[in-house]
């Protein structure tokens, strides 16, 4: 696939998924004191793998492709986290874990942002032909 047909590549899907993960991790951190709340997370690599295999190729101009985006809508990608120690109120959020994952996720989000930026710059310079 040429860079002009799909200028953003896999990074657009990755950004969308990173963004959804922010919501999940923010929920965990918000509910740190709620009894019986179970911490959840998105397994990034496995969801990315399914979106790649679900990405239907079209061989004719009138075919309707299934976009990566639709694969990201289901609840199946959400998994419950296994806590390293149980708490009496049934809450499985561990603030340190959630905090470090949130930071990691935002670093990776910024990396994806940089990739996207470079892609856009590449396309722009190709279009200008300077």
């Amino acid at each position, binding site marked *: 696939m040429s860079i002009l047909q799909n200028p953003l590549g896999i990074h657009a899907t990755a*950004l969308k998924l990173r*963004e*959804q993960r*922010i*919501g*999940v*991790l*923010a*929920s965990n*951190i*918000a*509910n*740190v*004191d*709620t*009894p019986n*709340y179970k911490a*959840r997370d998105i397994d990034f690599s496995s969801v990315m793998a399914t979106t790649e295999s679900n990405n239907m190729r079209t061989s004719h101009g009138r075919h309707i492709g299934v976009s990566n985006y639709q694969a990201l*809508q*289901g*609840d199946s990608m*959400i998994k419950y986290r296994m806590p390293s120690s149980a708490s009496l109120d049934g809450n499985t959020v561990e*603030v340190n874990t959630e*905090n470090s994952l*949130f*930071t990691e996720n*935002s670093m990776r*989000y*910024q990396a994806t*942002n940089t990739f*996207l*930026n470079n892609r*856009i*710059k590449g396309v*722009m310079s190709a279009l200008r032909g300077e």
Partner: protein
Amino acid sequence: MSMLTALKISSSAMTAQMVRMNTTASNLANMDVVGTTSEQAYRAKKPIFKTVMETHTNSNFEASVKVNGIHVSDRANTKRYDPQNPAANDDGYVFMSNVNSIEEMVDMTNASRSYQTNVEVMNATKKMMMATLQLGK
């Protein structure tokens, strides 16, 4: 959009923690309030947190938090012999509040830590949103 929801979730948590802080403040302020009967004495209050699923999207994994009510402690009020006290009953006893100051201090520290964490989440989310808004510039 998921990131705006993240801001909403963090703000709901901050509101909830603020309610917790307020109940702690009330409890500590009323710690020395005495009553003639057990019913008149102050009883410690505690907020009850509950998870609320965000339903505006078709994927239900974003959960904010709300205060589902205030629980009034049913721990027995201790009785103290103090016949000089104007609130003393016929036998010379007053009823103390059932606030445990150590418990309240721990609660206060916890609430302020949780509040801080949510502020940090909000800041990080804002930075990420700004970076995306600048995309391609």
